[in-house]
């Protein structure tokens, strides 16, 4: 059982953090980020060419994280690899002892830095979950042929409670869970109202019992950053009063952290939320403060 799974099963409020690999080969970047997070988070979640911008591969970065003794969560998106490549990378990662996988569909390449490229989307995230689940439990590839060897994999999926059609979101979550998702990482929560309504639905369907739900949070550095998320990032809902708060704030960074901490406090209260996933995009250094501030430090870790 992966450390992340174990801690979740123990019923502790989990903290994970996002780590974006560099646009280059120097592993120090990841190492630094990881050591910085050492002891503050239960796992780091390593992005797979997020927003379709080419970066050091998630697979390799996960191995580097492991070297540093940090539990990695390997993100896998369906944009760049077909079922052949995805299955083979999955096997490879398992062989190297990576135990947590986050299956995502992936941003469209037109959002990234190679918009001219041809996408794959051979399968979608839900199908990917199903394939990995079958590989782990049934020991078969997608085509039904048997595979050899042990697979220890804790499978996760993303979900965005804020995108349209809202009513469909919970249904989609249910599909992901029945497809094999054991933990769920949500899009960053700013609008707690929508989120609580979402969680209500989730509880109604008993999904919170079937999977561990980690709520995403983003500490924002500045007003412009917040506005960017409000206006530019699809599927992110930022209430106006937060924008106001940021505008008013004397020290926006401080305010950003404050907002983030308040959000976490609220999230802790929501039944069914089993942890937070901190996405401090290119601001990983702030994560320790947040974990401390949220009284989530120290982490007990694997027993």
């Amino acid at each position, binding site marked *: 059982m992966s450390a992340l799974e174990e801690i979740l099963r123990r019923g502790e409020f989990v903290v994970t953090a996002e780590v974006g690999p560099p646009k280059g080969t120097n592993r120090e970047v990841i190492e630094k980020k990881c050591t910085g997070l050492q002891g503050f988070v239960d796992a780091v979640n390593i992005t797979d060419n997020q927003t379709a911008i080419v970066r050091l591969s998630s697979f390799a970065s996960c191995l580097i994280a492991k070297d540093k003794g940090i539990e990695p969560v390997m993100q896998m998106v369906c944009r760049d690899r077909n079922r052949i490549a995805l299955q083979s990378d999955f096997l490879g990662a398992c062989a190297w002892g990576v135990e947590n996988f986050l299956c995502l569909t992936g941003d*469209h390449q037109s959002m990234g830095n190679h918009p001219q490229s041809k996408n794959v989307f051979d*399968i979608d995230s839900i199908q990917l979950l199903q394939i990995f689940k079958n590989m782990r439990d049934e020991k078969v590839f997608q085509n039904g042929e048997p595979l050899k060897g042990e697979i220890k994999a804790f499978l996760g999926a993303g979900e965005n409670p804020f995108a*349209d059609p809202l009513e469909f979101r919970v249904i989609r979550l249910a599909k992901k869970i029945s497809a094999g998702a054991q933990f769920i990482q949500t899009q960053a929560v700013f609008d707690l109202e929508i989120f609580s309504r979402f969680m209500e639905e989730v509880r109604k369907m008993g999904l919170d019992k079937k999977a561990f739900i980690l709520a995403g949070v983003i500490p924002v550095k500045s007003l412009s950053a917040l506005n960017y998320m409000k206006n530019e990032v699809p599927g992110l809902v930022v209430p106006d009063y937060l924008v106001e708060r940021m505008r008013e704030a004397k020290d926006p960074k401080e305010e950003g952290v404050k907002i983030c901490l308040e959000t976490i406090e609220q999230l802790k209260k929501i039944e069914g939320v089993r942890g937070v996933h901190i996405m401090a995009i290119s601001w990983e250094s702030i994560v320790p403060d947040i974990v401390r501030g949220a009284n989530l430090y120290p982490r007990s870790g694997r027993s």
Partner: protein
Amino acid sequence: MIIAERKPIKEILSFLGPGEKILVLGCGTCVTVCMSGGEKEARELSSLLRLKGWETKDLTVERQCEPEFNLRAREEIAKVDAIVSLACGVGVQALAECFPEKKIFPGLNTTFMGMPKEQGLWEERCWGCGNCIVHLFGYVCPVTRCAKSLLNGPCGGSKNGKCEVKPDRDCAWQLIYDRLKKENRLEVLYALQPPRDWSTSRYGGQRKMIREDVRL
């Protein structure tokens, strides 16, 4: 219907050698209907080329994707040095197969299979994946109309019913959801769609249909 749009004039001009006799050959079917390669456009282009100093003729055949029709233009084609074909990619190739020794240039970019929504607006509807499943999705094809061809629901980028990739396009999944909700058949969306067999699409290599029963 096949939708195509005219190549930039500059590009077309770059194909043509000075002093060449040019035939602008229109196609009387799909590209006429989508107003990019019919007789009107053919006449238009040839008069534009004349203004540019070329000696041109124009002609429009029923369908350039049929050798029989192309061969009817034999005489006219014999008289010219080069042809600008205002047909879809299929037409251009069919024409080239009929006239192996001629210089033939595509005047259009074939864009998609779609339908006219209103005067002057065409939208893509089919992708030719070779295995139709629209009935499962409220008659909105997710393979074509979802930027990521998602079969199990919308991605996280759908906002106000629009697609994050092309904000002026509807999110296919919004449409699917609305339609099924109206028919209140939402439960069909609960089913997990297994990975698709893409071998019927062009990923299975060049496609070909043989009907033994109709081959005499």
